[in-house]
Structures are given as structure tokens and as C-alpha cells.
């Protein structure tokens, strides 16, 4: 046997062994970065930060969002073009894909992890799918009392296989009970305010809050006291101030609530609104650099990070909660679209769309730990979401 044949035999044996015994790993330190223009996503490792795989062919991912399976192995990606894709993070492969609507905006997963719900603009409504197979279970058109179709926003999961969402055009909040996922029960709350633009469920699943675009304030449903209905919080926060044009609709999720406070983006104001999360009374308005898009509390709740709408989207600010003051202003890249904290908040990842990179910042020192290349990145989603209500 020549040296060359021996070498190739050894290499072949090594390759075979590699195939036979794949390296085991957990998914608890994984995440996903959406590459909006390419219609792809990157599977990433949080520590040390690294890109592990790229999955393509997911459709128009502008404004794409995703939810995790309860075992944090799979993600369900909701694409703008109505595509719903199930991706295996461990193998980096597309497992299933359905084109479920003409125009979709996001989704949620049920508390038992068996139902994936998609919220759609066109045709306006919510569809429920089997989380294993993506088989359609129920189709719930969103129509107002007069039968007019409405775009659906702010879909969030609640305990007991329930979901809540808001109707942008109709100004309603609907509570969907999927105890029987093929025949869900709907409770409608009408007249909750004009043009709800997004919604959130608190991380204990008790409150559902929809932000209003067409008027000041937010609409709050306390699911422990459903008979009390929906009430307005922070009404007239913009009174006496000029409402600025809104170049990017803000986003709400459960990260807005931290400790004793709730932090919300003001619409048409360069302000973060702060409410007491028991009384829901206004506590403060924090002046910031531009109009907030994401207002995210660190997992510990000590600081709140804010990014901004065009043309202020090159900047991120950090609010100190006890003093309710901006304490840091960062310029991590052009067009910062999204932020995601690690589960315990040691780092925050920011997507810089126009610099084609993801920036990883140490939250203690505010130093950039590293940057990862990504094509037009938007949403970043870490696997801790798998175990969190409202995510």
C-alpha cells in the first residue's frame, strides 16, 4: 500500500466516522438572524458568536418574524408573502413550507406548542396550523360588525392555548380560544380604539395590550378579568405636542414590561412612555433621539434599549430605569432594525441592515464584542423565546 492510498483510506474512514457520529449539541444557545432581502436566515450560536448555517428559499422576508417550537429545535418563519416555513436549526434544513396567505405579518405558537397561528393582512385573519405537519386546522377571517375585512396585527399567545390579536382596520381586539383548534371560540372586543398597530402579551400571560396608531393611548385587556373588557391606558399622551410624521411603525412585545414599569414607544413623538405596570398610570415620558421602534428592557429590567425610525435609525439609546434618563447613545451601524438580548442579558445583538452586519455588544462595558456578516439583516431571534409566553 502506497502512502497515498493509505492516506486516502484514513481520510475516508475519518469522513465516515464523522457521518456516523454527528456532534451532539443543545439548542439553548442558538438563534436566528433574518436576511430580509435574500429570503434566507442564518442559524447562529450566541457564545462565542458564530454563524452555523444558512437556510434559503423562505420567500419575501421583509418584516419577517418567527416563533420557536417548545423544544427550541425548530423555528416557524412567517414571511411577508404568506409563506410559513418550519426550519430545523440543528440540521440547518427546511422541514416544511406552506403558502398560507397572500400577505402575512407574523404569528405565535400555542402554550402547548401544538398549534402555530399566523396573522394575515390579506386575506385579513388568523389561521391555525398543526405544529408538526403545518396542516391547516382553522381559518378565522377578521371582519368587523359590518362584514368588512380587517388586517390583523399583534397576535400573541396566552395561557391555555388562547391567543389575542387586534384588527387594524376595525379597531377591535379578539380573544381566540383554541381548546378545540379545529373550532376555535372567539370573543370580540369592539371599539377599543382607532388603528391598533401591534400588540403584546405580558410575560405572565395576564395582560394583552394593543398600541394605537389612530389616536393616543393603548388598549389593555386584563385576561384575569375578562368581563371588565378593554380599557384605555396612557390616553392623550401626545396632548399639547405636535405629532410628527411616522416613517416606521413601532413594535410591541413582552420585553416592554420590566419590574414595576411598562415602556412603550410614543407614536409621532420622540419619546418613550413609561407606565406603572400595576395601576397603568403614566409615570414618565423620556425624551429620546427619534421616534422609537423597539423599546426593549434588558432581561434584568435595569436598563431599556431603544432604536429609532428613519431617519434616526443609525442610533441606539440606553435608558437608565431608576433615573428615567438616557445614559448612553450608541452608533453601532447604519439602519439598526432590531435588537435581541441573550437570555441573561450579558450581550445584545443588533442588526445593521445597510452595513450588512450583526453587531454584538457587551451590555456591561458597551464595547463591541464582535461583528458578524449578514445580508440585509432584520429580525434576530434567540432560542430562549421557546420557553417564554408572548414570544
Amino acid at each position, binding site marked *: 500500500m502506497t502512502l497515498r492510498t493509505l492516506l486516502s483510506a484514513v481520510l475516508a474512514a475519518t469522513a465516515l466516522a464523522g457521518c456516523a457520529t454527528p456532534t451532539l449539541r443543545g439548542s439553548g444557545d442558538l438563534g436566528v438572524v433574518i436576511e430580509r432581502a435574500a429570503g434566507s436566515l442564518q442559524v447562529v450560536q450566541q457564545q462565542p458568536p458564530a454563524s452555523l448555517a444558512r437556510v434559503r428559499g423562505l420567500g*419575501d422576508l421583509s418584516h419577517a418574524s418567527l416563533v420557536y417550537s417548545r423544544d427550541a429545535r425548530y423555528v416557524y418563519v412567517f414571511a411577508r408573502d404568506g409563506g410559513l416555513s418550519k426550519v430545523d436549526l440543528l440540521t440547518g434544513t427546511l422541514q416544511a413550507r406552506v403558502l398560507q396567505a397572500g400577505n402575512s405579518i407574523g404569528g405565535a405558537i400555542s402554550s402547548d406548542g401544538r398549534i402555530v397561528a399566523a396573522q394575515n393582512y390579506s386575506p385579513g385573519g388568523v389561521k391555525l396550523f398543526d405544529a408538526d405537519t403545518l396542516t391547516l386546522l382553522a381559518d378565522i377571517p377578521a371582519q368587523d360588525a359590518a362584514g368588512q375585512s380587517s388586517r390583523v396585527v399583534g397576535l400573541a399567545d396566552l395561557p391555555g392555548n388562547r391567543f389575542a390579536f387586534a384588527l387594524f382596520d376595525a379597531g377591535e381586539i379578539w380573544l381566540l380560544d383554541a381548546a378545540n383548534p379545529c373550532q376555535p371560540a372567539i370573543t370580540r372586543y369592539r371599539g377599543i380604539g382607532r388603528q391598533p398597530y401591534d400588540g403584546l402579551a405580558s410575560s405572565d400571560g395576564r395582560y394583552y395590550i394593543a398600541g394605537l396608531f389612530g389616536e393616543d393611548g393603548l388598549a389593555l385587556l386584563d385576561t384575569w378579568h375578562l368581563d371588565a373588557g378593554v380599557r384605555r391606558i396612557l390616553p392623550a399622551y401626545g396632548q399639547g405636542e405636535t405629532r410628527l410624521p411616522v416613517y416606521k411603525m413601532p413594535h410591541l412585545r413582552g420585553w416592554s414590561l420590566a419590574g414595576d414599569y411598562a415602556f412603550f414607544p410614543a407614536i409621532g413623538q420622540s419619546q418613550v412612555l413609561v407606565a406603572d405596570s400595576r395601576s397603568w398610570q403614566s409615570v414618565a415620558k423620556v425624551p429620546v433621539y427619534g421616534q422609537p421602534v423597539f423599546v426593549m428592557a434588558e432581561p434584568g429590567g435595569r436598563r431599556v434599549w431603544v432604536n429609532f425610525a428613519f431617519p434616526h435609525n443609525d442610533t441606539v439609546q440606553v435608558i437608565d430605569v431608576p433615573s428615567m434618563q438616557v445614559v448612553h447613545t450608541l452608533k453601532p451601524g447604519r439602519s439598526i432594525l432590531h435588537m435581541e438580548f441573550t437570555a441573561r442579558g450579558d450581550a445584545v445583538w443588533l442588526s445593521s441592515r445597510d452595513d450588512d452586519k450583526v453587531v454584538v455588544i457587551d451590555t456591561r462595558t458597551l464595547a463591541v464584542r464582535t461583528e458578524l456578516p449578514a445580508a440585509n439583516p432584520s429580525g434576530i431571534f434567540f432560542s430562549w423565546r421557546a420557553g417564554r409566553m408572548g414570544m
Partner: protein
Amino acid sequence: MTKPLYSRGSLIGLMLMLLACALLFASEAVPASHLPKPDAARRQVLLHLLREDCGACHGLTRQGGLGSPLTAAALAGKPADSLVATILDGRPGTAMPPWRPFISEQEARWLVELLQQDLPR
């Protein structure tokens, strides 16, 4: 990282269409037609704005979302002047903001021409 928005062929086609448009407008004596077109660098900025920032509501492929669809089919038959006015001054009662602080009238007119011709996505 820069990505070519168009192939060379489609770019030439686009330029021919724009030229045809310019001639058409000239013959109809539309008041704004004598305004200079945005230069090449500015056109890149506008195309980026259209794709990314308009796309935030109208979709990267302009199929619509919170904003209405901006495909040529969706815009067919709509007067260019009213579309230009919508870009510049927004639509009260909707989420469409005024872009006048960032876009001039002739730039808005150039964008409307592109959109109504369904530029390559």
C-alpha cells in the same frame, strides 16, 4: 456589500423607457417635466429608500402590507399627479407619512414613473 439592482440589459431598457417617458411628458407640456431628473448617485439613494423604507410598509416586492400594493398593476390607471402628491404629502387618516422633507417633487415624479412601469424587483 453592494448588490446590483438590475442586470445591464434591464438597465438599458429602463433608461430607454425613461427617455421615452421624458419625450412623452415633454410633448404633453406637463409643468414638472422640465425639472431635471435626479442624477445617478441620487437615483441610487432613491431606489434604496424605495426598496427599504417604503418597503417597510409596502413590502420589499411591493405587494403591500400595512401600506397598499405598489405594483404597476395596482397603480394602473391612477393619475401620476395624485401619486406624486401622496408621496410628498402623505395620506391623512392612514399610516402614509409625507416624504417631502426627504424627496423633491421631481424625485417623487421619477419614482412614480418607475413604479407605474413596474421596475424589476
